[in-house]
C-alpha cells in the first residue's frame, strides 16, 4: 500500500497525496509544461517562415513598438496584481483581494483592447492572415495568445463571482492560485513573443526567393 504523505505546502494547505502536492496543482503544472510545447511550436513556425514573405506588408512596415511596449507593460503589471490578489486571499484580507482580482481583469481587458486595435490597424494596412507568410504566422501566434488571455479573463470573472458569493477565502485560495498560475504563464509567453517577434524581428523586411530576386532588390 502506498504511503500517503500528509504535508503542508507553503500556504498551509494540506495535501494528502503521495507527492504532498495537491492533484489539481500537479495537473496544472503538467498542463503548463505541455503548453510550452504548444507555443514553442508556433514561435518556431514563425521563425521558420521569417523573412520568407514575397509580398508585403512586412514586419518593419507594420509593427508598432511603442504601442506594443505599453501593452506588454500592462500585461506585466497584471501579473503583479494577480500575485497580490492571491497573497491577500491567503491572508483572508478579502476586500483587498477583490480589488486586485478586479485590477487583473481590467488590465487583461486592456491588453486585449491593445491587441484588437493592433490587429485592426494591420488589416487596414493590408496585412491579413492570408496575405503572406508573415501575416499567417503572426496572427496565428498572437491570436492564440490573445485567446489564452481571454480565457484567463473569463476565469477571473468567475473567481470574482465566487468571491461575491463568499466562496473565496484562505481555505479555498488554491482556486485562485490555479487561475494565477495560468495567468502568469500567459505573461511569460508574451515576454518571449515581445522579444522574439517584436524587438528582434522588427527589422525583418522583404524576403529573398531567388538569387535573381535578390539582384532586383539591390538594383542589380
Amino acid at each position: 500500500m502506498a504511503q500517503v504523505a500528509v504535508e503542508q505546502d507553503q500556504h498551509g494547505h494540506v495535501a494528502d497525496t503521495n507527492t504532498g502536492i495537491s492533484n489539481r496543482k500537479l495537473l496544472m503544472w503538467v498542463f503548463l509544461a505541455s503548453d510550452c510545447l504548444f507555443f514553442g511550436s508556433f514561435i518556431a513556425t514563425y521563425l521558420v517562415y521569417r523573412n520568407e514573405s514575397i509580398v508585403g506588408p512586412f514586419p518593419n512596415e507594420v509593427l508598432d513598438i511603442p504601442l506594443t511596449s505599453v501593452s506588454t507593460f500592462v500585461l506585466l503589471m497584471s501579473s503583479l496584481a494577480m500575485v497580490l490578489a492571491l497573497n491577500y486571499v491567503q491572508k483572508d484580507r478579502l476586500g483587498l483581494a477583490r480589488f486586485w482580482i478586479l485590477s487583473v481583469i481590467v488590465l487583461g481587458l486592456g491588453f486585449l483592447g491593445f491587441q484588437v486595435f493592433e490587429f485592426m490597424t494591420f488589416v487596414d494596412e493590408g496585412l491579413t492572415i492570408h496575405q503572406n507568410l508573415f501575416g499567417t504566422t503572426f496572427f496565428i501566434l498572437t491570436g492564440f495568445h490573445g485567446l489564452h488571455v481571454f480565457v484567463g479573463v473569463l476565469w477571473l470573472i468567475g473567481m470574482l463571482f465566487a468571491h461575491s458569493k463568499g466562496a473565496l477565502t484562505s481555505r479555498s485560495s488554491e482556486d485562485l492560485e490555479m487561475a494565477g498560475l495560468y495567468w502568469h504563464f500567459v505573461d511569460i509567453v508574451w515576454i518571449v513573443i515581445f522579444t522574439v517577434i517584436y524587438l528582434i524581428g522588427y527589422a525583418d523586411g522583404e524576403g529573398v526567393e531567388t538569387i535573381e530576386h535578390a539582384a532586383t532588390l539591390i538594383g542589380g
Partner: protein
Amino acid sequence: MANPITKLWNKIFYHGGNRHFLLPNVDAARPDPPNEGPFGEAGPVVFGWWNRLTYGDKVATPVFYTIVGAILAILTVLEVWFFTLDDGFGSLFVPTMLVLALAKFIIVVAFFMHLRFDKNLLSLIFAAGFVIAIAVFMIVLSVHDKVNPAPLIYP
C-alpha cells in the same frame, strides 16, 4: 622565564611557540569544514540574505512582490531602450535581448508562480516541458536550416 614581550611576540606570530602563524580560528581550518565549496564562508552569509529576501516568513510579502514587479518593469524599459539605440548593440543585440527576456521569464516563474517556494517536483515538471519545447524548437529550426541562416542578400 620568558619576558612579557617575548610571550606576546610568540602568541601573535608563533602560535604559543609552535612556530606557526597564529591565524584566526576559522571554519575553513577545521578538519571537516562545514562551508567547504566555491563560496566558502561567504556562502551562509550570501545565501542567508537570499533566503530571507525571497522566502521571508514562508510566504513572501506584498512589498517583496512589488519590488519584483518593479524589477520586471525596469528590465522591460531596458529592452525597449536598447531597441531604440541607433547602433543597437551590433551583433550583441540579439543575445542581449534574449538574456533580458530569459531573466524576466525566470523571475516570473520563480516568484510570481512560486516555484522558488514550492516543492522541487513542480520545478522539475515545468523544466521538463520547457526543455522538450526548446529541443523541438531547435530541431524544427535545424531541419529548415534556420539556426545559421544564409545571409538575406546573396553574395
